[in-house]
């Protein structure tokens, strides 16, 4: 992205163009870019197919908030008992069939 104050740079880009991270499915699409070098359309389609949703749903917080809790892959709000951190990543690795390097330490 680049340098700048958090409001002017990070938050502004997130609102204008960002996928939404764990609020939606941005972390999942990022993992496909990072592990398989997938370009964006391919990465989105792969994740959408694995989640059983449409590509348009991937950045829709209404759809993804509920689906993430149902799949127990980490949700943005603090839900007691929901999988967190490395717990959620183990489920993500199985769901997407990708390697998550830190899981190899378990």
């Amino acid at each position, binding site marked *: *992205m*680049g*340098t*700048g*104050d*958090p*409001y*002017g*740079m*990070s*938050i*502004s*880009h*997130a*609102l*204008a*163009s*960002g*996928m*939404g*991270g*764990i*609020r*939606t499915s*941005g*972390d999942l*699409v*990022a*993992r496909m*870019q*990072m*592990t398989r*070098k*997938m*370009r*964006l359309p391919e*990465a989105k389609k792969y994740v959408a197919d694995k989640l059983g949703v449409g*590509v*348009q749903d*991937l*950045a*829709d917080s209404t759809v993804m908030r509920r689906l993430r809790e149902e799949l127990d*892959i*980490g949700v*943005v709000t603090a839900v007691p008992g929901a999988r*967190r*951190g*490395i717990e*959620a*990543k183990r489920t*993500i690795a199985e769901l997407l069939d990708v*390697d*998550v*390097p*830190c*899981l*190899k*330490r378990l």
Partner: protein
Amino acid sequence: MSTIRTRMGDGYVVELTPPQLRDDLEAGCADAVKRGKVPPLEVNEIDWLFDLFANPSRIMGVEPGHEVVLTKDGSVNTLYSAQLSSGVGLPLGREQCFRIFERAFCFDTMEIGHPDYSYKPVKPIVALEATGVEQALLTAVIPVFYGAMPNFGLYAQPDGPFPNPADLLPRGEVEAAREAQMQMAQACKDDMLYVSRQMAMVGADGINFDTTASTGDAEFLAVLETVEELAATTDLAIEVGMAAEFVLGFHGELEWRGHRLAGMWPHQQVKVVEEAGAHLFGPVVNTNSRKSVPWNVARAVTIVKECSRVASIPIHANVGMGVGGVPMFEVPPADVLTRASAAMVEIGRVDGL
């Protein structure tokens, strides 16, 4: 005739008439074509940019469904660091900042980095840095990068052990300057490999080489050789973000696998970066503070569009202060920042920012 409120490349407001706006967009595109030797934008793309800047709304964004993945160079420093990182000096630790980026800013990935943000000073404290990465890995769901700059200048006297090429070149000692750069490249590569392997050992998802080639072709060579080795021996996702739009030829004669590095533009840089084995590439197009933001955005997306077209790996364009059409100002105005953001996605066809 009504005017359109936009900004100059230094952030100050400027009023343009509609014909002036179109002229600036076409001139920015033409400059990219001339200097970068890339194809021009299509007429409908210039029209799209015109509508983007003519729209009076305070902020703009991409079409729903066109959202892209965010990676963040400079790491979480922007929250806890000082002005050197455009930081706002919050009294928070790095791991807390990481969680804020994940849960409050909803970033798709995030970095841990040292406040100095260079590989050389990280080397003696790498255990501390690796511990920070481990803490983030335990508690975060989003992918965790470690990031820093090669920062080649730290290897030349008086900051480093090698003769300073910038002192040797004015004296006409070209061969000595080249030899010094090769020694610096080896030391820089050793440091980047050492730190990266520690991050791989603790399970980091990725490593970021930010502001690559800031000191020219020898620094670019050091990064390419580092990437090559890491891609072959670790699970790290490797991101290479550039420092400027073309590679300076401080050495001038360096090649990597038969490719001359000096003078490369983003659409050429990405091909050697992907051949080395990197997973993500961050092209840079410098902002001209004496031109308008529409001129700069049109120029930037023209260059990045060609980079994205030829790439086989994801492109995460740099759109920070002073690059990608964004004004050269540490507090970038959201009106032009969001327009540069949307243009880079919709016309530059990037996979991320």
